[in-house]
């Protein structure tokens, strides 16, 4: 035995033979998991296919110019067309950012209240109300925004303009306060409060109990405990929730369409009644668009789709980089 040299073996290949039931189940969940990816891909493909002609025609101008015109001869042939989404993209981003800026603090405070301050009965009641808000048809938010919010918000918009006008986005050259990105942003914020609240509430409720107790045992007040334990724990989740809200706000159509003035000129002045929104553009033009214009609208849809993906990608990146320290 000692004379023989030790033969070092190759590592064995380790295989497992799953049971049939396991295989079937794996097949089912794989199909389920891939179907959303496939659907997403098909939608992008469809939009790209339908919009390809316009995209090729306009080139990069499709996202850098602000234009939407098409002229046809009597036979319906396109004579001349200019399609550019820049103002719509800026408007989409502006409106949804306003929405998140307003909705985020309200949602976080609601979530903290629900988790740490509200008595049990009130908590149950409020959660039901907030969930109902999420299921509310968006056209009703739009109508409410138009009939109720818009007349009363003008006062606040003027106030903002008077006292914060030195900041460019609160400034305006022409005093037109109705149908502004600000109004649309406020309507959108109300629509995204439920989702951000529920994501925040979920993540806050997972704050580790032993840390919460450690904070209390050190003489922390409830608010001090929340600042030291709950918020660091929930930070990345809240950002994720905000990004979900942002995504929803960017894609929202009807509500924005009802309260926003669509103008083909880039406008960062949020109080001015001239905005843009890709989704609203699509419903605005879809009804009586010529076949070629439909293609342009499909291309616009593709751009919105890519913008949403981009924002979500950024969100994931933020969550990953900020997430570690809190846990």
């Amino acid at each position: 035995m000692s004379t023989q040299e030790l033969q070092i073996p190759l590592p064995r290949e380790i295989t497992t033979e799953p049971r049939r039931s396991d295989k079937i189940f794996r097949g089912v969940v794989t199909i389920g998991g891939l179907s959303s990816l496939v659907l997403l891909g098909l939608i992008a493909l469809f939009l790209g296919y339908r919009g390809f002609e316009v995209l090729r025609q306009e080139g990069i101008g499709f996202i850098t110019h602000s234009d939407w015109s098409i002229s046809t001869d009597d036979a319906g042939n396109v004579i001349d067309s200019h399609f550019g989404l820049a103002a719509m993209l800026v408007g989409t981003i502006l409106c949804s950012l306003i929405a998140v800026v307003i909705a985020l603090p309200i949602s976080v405070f609601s979530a903290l209240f629900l988790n740490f301050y509200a008595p049990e009965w009130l908590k149950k009641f409020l959660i039901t109300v907030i969930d109902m808000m999420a299921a509310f048809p968006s056209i009703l938010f739009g109508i409410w925004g138009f009939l109720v919010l818009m007349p009363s918000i003008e006062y606040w918009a003027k106030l903002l303009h008077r006292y914060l006008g030195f900041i460019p986005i609160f400034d305006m050259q022409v005093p037109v306060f109705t149908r502004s990105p600000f109004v649309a942003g406020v309507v959108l914020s109300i629509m995204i409060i439920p989702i951000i609240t529920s994501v925040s509430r979920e993540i806050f409720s997972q704050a580790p109990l032993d840390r919460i107790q450690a904070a209390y045992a050190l003489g922390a007040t409830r608010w001090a405990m929340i600042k030291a334990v709950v918020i660091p724990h929930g930070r990345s989740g809240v950002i994720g929730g905000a990004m979900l809200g942002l995504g929803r706000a960017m894609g929202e159509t009807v509500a924005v369409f009802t309260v926003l003035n669509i103008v083909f000129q880039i406008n960062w002045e949020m109080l001015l009644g001239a905005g843009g929104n890709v989704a609203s553009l699509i419903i605005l033009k879809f009804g009586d668009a010529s076949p070629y214009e439909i293609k342009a609208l499909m291309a616009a849809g593709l751009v919105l789709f890519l913008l949403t993906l981009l924002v979500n990608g950024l969100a994931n990146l933020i969550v990953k980089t900020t997430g570690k320290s809190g846990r």
Partner: protein
Amino acid sequence: MTTAHESETTKMQVPVKPNSLADVAQVLRTPGTKAIGTGLETRGIHAWFGKHHALSNISLGFAAGTVTALIGPSGCGKSTFIRTINRMHEFIPGAAMAGEVLLDGKDVYAPGTDVTKIRLQIGMVFQKPNPFPSMTIGENVLSGLKLAQLKVDNKDDLMQECLERAGLWSEVKDRLGAHGGSLSGGQQQRLCIARALAVRPQVLLMDEPCSALDPGSTLRIEDTIRHLSETMTIIIVTHNMQQAARVSDYTAFFLSEGGPGQMIEVAPTSDIFSRPQDQRTENYVTGRFG
């Protein structure tokens, strides 16, 4: 170790000016002469979880500067008892209590008492080390000050003092900016002790502080407990009878015989182990049950 001890004692401001280390030790060993406050007393403590009566009629005195070990089988209410002392019991939904906890003669449950102040005076170390993961080691030590909005003049000195008293300073002094989670379990527990010390409690409650730790860390923490008892009153729950024998002046034996947990016997630690008065205590300390 001697030098560290010397520097600690000068920081602790012994009221009688000592001439030698032996004098210091003498002052420190006399209960009540040095420790903060006049001790703690519980009178007729009962505790409930909903309808479940978990603890019955616990009356115990804890003289300032002593270490009292609470021993007894699992589920006899030791944790529940110490959680009534610093009013952590009331966080559990449906929890109730009766009786009085007197700190320097004042009932901590008296109406109008600021409960956060009580918890500053009665610190707690938990079974599982629970440093704040989002804070650095240094921030963890000082976290109590921030949480309770206390101001101190020299944070660095306080941080060093607390880490020294918790026996952790030499291991972490070069990486105070590292995160608390980067320490070993035993180091994390000592960090939690340092954190509890920073708000200068007069009583320290420890709920099985070593049960999740290796023997080496356990010995270090026992060392720490002996040093700390020079300046504060310590109540420690332990499953480990050698530990009770090593660190405590008094030992109380808790037992639940089907009903709520009760205190069977309390005596100087050596008596509990050498000549227990109650048969049930003897059975437990000799390992015949529990």
